[in-house]
């Protein structure tokens, strides 16, 4: 009796242990009711409703596909975590920055080279993506909508003060002085959010980096420094000085203000300009739908013809390399790139659509940047070329706080050297 009792206990315990172990490795598989479920990784909080609308229209036309939108807050960390776990979502939207390029180079995304949807996209947009990186010989992302990073200005205030859009640096500073004299706050600074120092840095830094600056930086690698042919210390002193000059026109207490504070202040006419990209117009209009705002590129050149508008692929669409739902995912992607769908999305998000033939909405801000897109006076974000392990945002923010531009540039060069020294490229297929 005692013996049998013992065995029962033992059996129960073994079963409990075993079920726990199985539970750990367990994995649910989908039901076989003929409907395919696609997981849609979506990084853009403000586009949640637009995509929900697109998805419900798509599902109405394709009853055999269900799309689940997963809107994530910290998309770059989230996608990396999913990749580490080998759980790449079926369809993915990401911001096309340096991280996207590195993920693409690692070969985790689908190759769209032979897909017909690629033919409909503006080649200039695909070029910006190609600069970020693809797996050799492949095309791993489709540009969806483009943003524009310039100075947002309140056209009503400019008109009232009789000011024109500045086309050279001296004119820009003259506009700031005129506004200040008239008792109007020229800019609204929001440095409590460290990244808000970056739009102006990117725009001003675009000028000295046009001739393959970052290619040379990568080539120099461990030798980057004040004495090397190109380096931050050598080529960026003017950028930092100009940025600091702009920040000297900020309101009192700009160090403690956040991005949202800035949008609210600009929307209510408390400042004439914002050093922000076109993405800020959406929240601004959420506060004041009637604001008359437009964008001009940072005129960091002496000749108006040399002005450059910084633009990035704000949303890139891609899919997992190995997905069991390839056909369905491609059908959804084709739908996303239909002219009517992308036009509506771009207009709602105040962005420039990538599909050839899709019209830019008649929003004054978009119309103000259209000439630069048409004439090709556009360039990419330079921070996408800086390895993410360099604390670029923090360094730029600190230099704006303490005014030590030389120290900041020295830090950037030293970080560049260290990253170059410790990055050992993956060789071949050998694991």
């Amino acid at each position, binding site marked *: 009796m005692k013996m049998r009792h013992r065995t029962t206990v033992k059996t129960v315990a073994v079963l409990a242990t075993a079920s726990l172990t199985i539970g750990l490795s367990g994995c649910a598989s989908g039901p076989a009711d003929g409907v395919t479920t696609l997981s849609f990784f979506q990084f853009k909080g403000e586009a949640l409703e637009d995509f929900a609308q697109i998805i419900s229209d798509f599902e109405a036309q394709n009853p055999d596909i269900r799309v689940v939108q997963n809107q994530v807050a910290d998309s*770059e960390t989230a996608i990396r975590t999913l990749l580490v776990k080998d759980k790449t979502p079926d369809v993915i939207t990401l911001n096309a920055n340096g991280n996207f390029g590195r993920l693409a180079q690692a070969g985790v995304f689908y190759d769209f080279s032979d897909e017909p949807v690629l033919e409909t996209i503006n080649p200039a947009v695909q070029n910006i993506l190609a600069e970020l990186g693809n797996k050799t010989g492949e095309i791993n992302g489709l540009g969806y909508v483009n943003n524009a990073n310039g100075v947002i200005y309140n056209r009503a205030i400019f008109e009232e003060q009789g000011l024109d859009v500045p086309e050279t640096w001296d004119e820009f500073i003259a506009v700031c002085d005129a506004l200040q004299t008239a008792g109007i706050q020229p800019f609204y600074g929001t440095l409590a959010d460290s990244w808000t120092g970056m739009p102006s840095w990117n725009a001003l830094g675009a000028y000295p980096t046009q001739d393959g600056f970052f290619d040379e930086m990568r080539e120099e690698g461990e030798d980057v420094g004040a004495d090397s042919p190109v380096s931050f210390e050598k080529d960026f002193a003017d950028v930092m000085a100009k940025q600091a000059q702009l920040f000297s026109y900020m309101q009192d*207490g700009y160090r*403690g203000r956040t991005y949202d504070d800035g949008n609210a202040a600009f929307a209510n006419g408390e400042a004439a300009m914002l050093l922000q990209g076109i993405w800020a117009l959406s929240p601004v209009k959420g506060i004041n739908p009637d604001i008359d705002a437009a964008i001009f590129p940072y005129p960091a050149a002496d000749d108006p013809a040399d002005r450059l508008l910084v633009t990035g692929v704000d949303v890139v669409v891609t899919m997992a390399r190995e997905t069991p739902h390839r056909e369905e995912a491609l059908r959804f992607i084709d739908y996303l790139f239909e002219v009517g769908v992308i036009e509506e999305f771009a207009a709602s998000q105040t962005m420039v659509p990538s599909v050839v033939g899709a019209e830019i909405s008649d929003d004054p801000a978009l119309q103000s940047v259209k000439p630069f897109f048409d004439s090709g006076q556009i360039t990419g974000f330079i921070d996408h070329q800086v390895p993410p392990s360099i604390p670029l945002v923090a360094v730029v923010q600190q230099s704006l706080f303490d005014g030590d531009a030389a120290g900041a540039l020295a830090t950037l060069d030293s970080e560049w050297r260290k990253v170059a020294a410790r990055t050992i490229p993956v060789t071949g297929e050998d694991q």
Partner: protein
Amino acid sequence: MTSLTSAVRTSATGPSTKKRATRVRSSAARAMPAYYWMVWPAVIAFAAFHTIPVLVGIFFSFTNYAGYGEWNFVGMANYLALFKDDRVLQSYGFSFLFAIVATILTNAISLTIAMGLNAKIKARNFWRGVYFVPYVLAILVIGYVFQFLFSNSLPKILSGIPLFRDNILTNPDFAWTAIVGLAVWQACAFSIIIYLSGLQTIPSELYEAASLDGASSWRQFTSITFPLIGAFFTINVVLSLKGFLQVFDPIIALTNGGPGTSTESVTLLIFRGGFSGGEFAYQTANAVIFFIVITIVSLLQFRVLQRREADY
């Protein structure tokens, strides 16, 4: 990475449980088999969620794995690069400075408060409840409350002091003191509880005898109270220092490592560099080193502190 840091945490508290366990040794020669079966599920879960991830992490610290895609072995290159990286060294400096200051403040303040709460004061249970509230609140929630306090309220209230007027969180030299303030405010709650339970183990006869002998309050504290709560002091200091060395959430809530990289702790650097920075293997090597450092520090503390614990 979360599993790694928590693995580090668990391993670092390892010595404490081991030391305690040896003291209460069971008199029975062999335990019943049922006890073993009770332990097995926990062992398997622990191995699956802690030990194996740690070993996998250590393995990848010898590669150039970015967290995805292909990789090669690179030998000790990651470890060598760590010692040449001034950003890493700076983060160790920050973590230790922060941990030492916060540990001293937490233990001094919570011991004082615990003695007050142990005395016969009015509404004693109410005050005990009040001092426990910070422990119940989520650190990120109070973190954002403190952030508002530092960046909006204090600049107005203390507008006469330049340090606070310009938002102390944006001052590279003093932002860390604000983080210490938040961390200590929150950590005190738990330390107070431990000290309170320690104080209650001291028999009141000892104090009666001491007061009959004419010992002053200070003498009673140094000769009776402090020696007799030595074990509680040890566990509090070790746990606080270990916890503060791994500081993460208060920094995220207050400064996010800024301004610049002046408040970047080791854990924040591991998380940032490993995930946003795409240097998974390199920062895993950093995590391995950090794990070793914390283990050594904790062991040293136990040796030093336990030597002067008193029993009665």
